[in-house]
């Protein structure tokens, strides 16, 4: 049952061969049996999940079901869930139970989906290995002691381990695509503004974007159908109409123009990884696509620009965690300054504190022009690179990460080594375009991802391109032992 896709489960619920209560019970059991190995969940919501499942079954009997009614899924613990604690994997919010739902959560609830629980992640989504969680590191189901990637490592590991058929996630600099790649599943980061950020605990507001994780591209399309919406509570939410993303999955790819950014292949890239990526691209040629090299001349500046802009925004987004209205507060503060300084020193982990400090520095008097403003200018150059590229080709393809899943602890000593993990992913967030990670084979038994990048609001096209690969190959169906 747990190897089935959302689409298959939806059909079985519809046919009556299985109930939501049965499905939900099954996945909850798997979580309790297996998640000790992965630590992919921070909170498991047995009681509310079973209640929601019973309600979903009743709704189906009333003939009011949507394709999602009764389907279990998990939310990254960065989406606020009313009545269920939402921690952002931080000590700061270890006991925070929001009195409101994120719009994404509300959308799934409205569709009748069943929330199994909240998945683990890097603290405040800052990281690429899901090791910085206050609730402990997440382990990749594909390899003992391997990281699942990050920051949405809990969502990726839970889907890969078949503990949930689908999981929501967010992507600020690669936080969906890189863990999806390292865990051998399919993930999509949508165009900035396509999915509401309301109720998503902010990391970097102009880069953060929600997205989807599941085994198949089709399931990602089903998720996006629910997650994409215009939300008046988020000023940056777009009012463009939301298409049915499943409707165009089977469009033929003949004539599809694929661009390979020269700069993304020239970087120090594991030779076996490059081989897998090129093999996947060869599959597309078999399907009638044409391939050409393109250039993103400012690609090498993306990491630098990102590691100014993201920390700068984060440094002020996280100022609200001050121990006054909610969240962690230090014991017996002796004065106001002490309250702030100890609350934040004790409530935040090391990587979060580093980023707040770098961001504060980049915005401070005397450094603003050299860092923040310069980074914003480079951001425009990077965006222009993509605009120019999409005049020549329909999609871009590249690796997602420079290496497959690495060993836990290997990159935690030096933050810069960890940052370089994001070398192929951050430019997408700076430009705000959509991108996917699709399984593309294995290196030494560890999954490799193919990154597919599209123009603004081309999610339907990306899902179509990913789905067609999954019709021709079965890399996405391999499962860890």
């Amino acid at each position, binding site marked *: 049952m747990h190897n089935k896709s959302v689409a298959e489960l939806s059909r079985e619920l519809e046919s009556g061969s299985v109930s939501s209560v049965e499905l939900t019970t099954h996945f909850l059991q798997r979580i309790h049996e297996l998640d000790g190995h992965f630590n992919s969940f921070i909170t498991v919501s047995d009681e509310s999940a079973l209640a929601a499942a019973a309600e979903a079954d009743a709704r189906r009997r009333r003939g009011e079901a949507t394709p999602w009614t009764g389907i279990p899924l998990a939310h990254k613990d960065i989406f606020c869930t009313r009545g269920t604690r939402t921690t952002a994997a931080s000590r700061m919010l270890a006991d925070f139970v929001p009195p409101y739902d994120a719009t994404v959560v509300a959308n799934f609830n409205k569709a009748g989906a069943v929330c199994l629980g909240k998945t683990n992640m890097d603290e405040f989504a800052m990281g690429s290995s899901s090791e910085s969680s206050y609730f402990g590191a997440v382990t990749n189901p594909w390899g003992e002691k391997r990281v699942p990637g990050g920051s949405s490592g809990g969502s990726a590991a839970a889907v890969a381990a078949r503990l949930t058929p689908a999981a929501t996630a967010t992507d600020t600099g690669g936080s969906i695509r890189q863990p999806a790649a390292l865990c051998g599943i399919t993930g999509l980061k949508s165009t900035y503004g396509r999915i509401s950020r309301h109720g998503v605990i902010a990391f970097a507001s102009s880069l953060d974007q929600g997205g989807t994780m599941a085994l198949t591209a089709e399931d990602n399309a089903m998720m996006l159908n629910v997650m994409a919406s215009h939300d008046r509570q988020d000023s940056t939410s777009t009012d463009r109409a939301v298409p049915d993303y499943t409707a165009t999955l089977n469009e033929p790819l003949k004539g599809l123009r694929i661009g390979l950014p020269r700069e993304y292949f020239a970087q120090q890239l594991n030779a076996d990884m490059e081989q897998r990526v090129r093999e996947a691209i060869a599959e597309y040629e078999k399907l009638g696509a044409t391939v050409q090299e393109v250039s993103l001349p400012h690609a090498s500046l993306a990491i630098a620009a990102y590691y100014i802009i993201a920390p700068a925004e984060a440094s002020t987004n996280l100022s609200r965690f001050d121990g006054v209205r*909610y969240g962690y507060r230090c014991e017996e503060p002796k004065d106001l300054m002490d309250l702030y*300084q100890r609350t*934040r020193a004790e409530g935040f982990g090391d990587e979060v504190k580093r980023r707040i400090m770098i961001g504060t520095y980049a915005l401070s008097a005397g450094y603003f022009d050299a860092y923040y403003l310069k980074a914003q200018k*480079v951001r425009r150059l990077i965006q222009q690179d993509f605009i120019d590229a999409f005049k020549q080709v329909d999609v871009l393809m590249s690796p997602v990460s420079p290496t497959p899943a690495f060993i836990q602890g290997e990159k935690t000593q030096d933050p810069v080594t960890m940052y370089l993990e994001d070398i192929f992913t951050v430019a997408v967030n*700076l430009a*705000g375009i959509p991108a996917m990670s699709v399984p593309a084979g294995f290196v030494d038994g560890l999954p490799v991802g193919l990154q597919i990048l599209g123009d603004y609001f081309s999610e339907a096209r990306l899902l179509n391109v990913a789905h067609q690969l999954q019709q021709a190959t079965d890399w996405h169906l391999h499962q860890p032992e």
Partner: protein
Amino acid sequence: MAISREDIEKVAVLARIQVTDEQIAGLETDLGNILNLVDQLQAADTDAVEPLAHPLDAVQHLRADVVSETDQRDAFQALAPATEEGLYLVPRVIE
């Protein structure tokens, strides 16, 4: 670019994060390495380039001036570390 001990202390105060002497030593290395990474930016020619604050070329939409919120003080203050008579409590603020 190197970051000095004084800079770290100043930034820590601005960010309201207590740092110990030991931590400052570690931060000098880590933040210094991060600044070396981001200093690649300085090589870019950005004359005549407008900064980009937002990926989408969209404009702010405006909300009608109609009250939509109700009093949820009890629910909100249940989350608070210290309240009294409906107020959030903090150590005495000296103006």
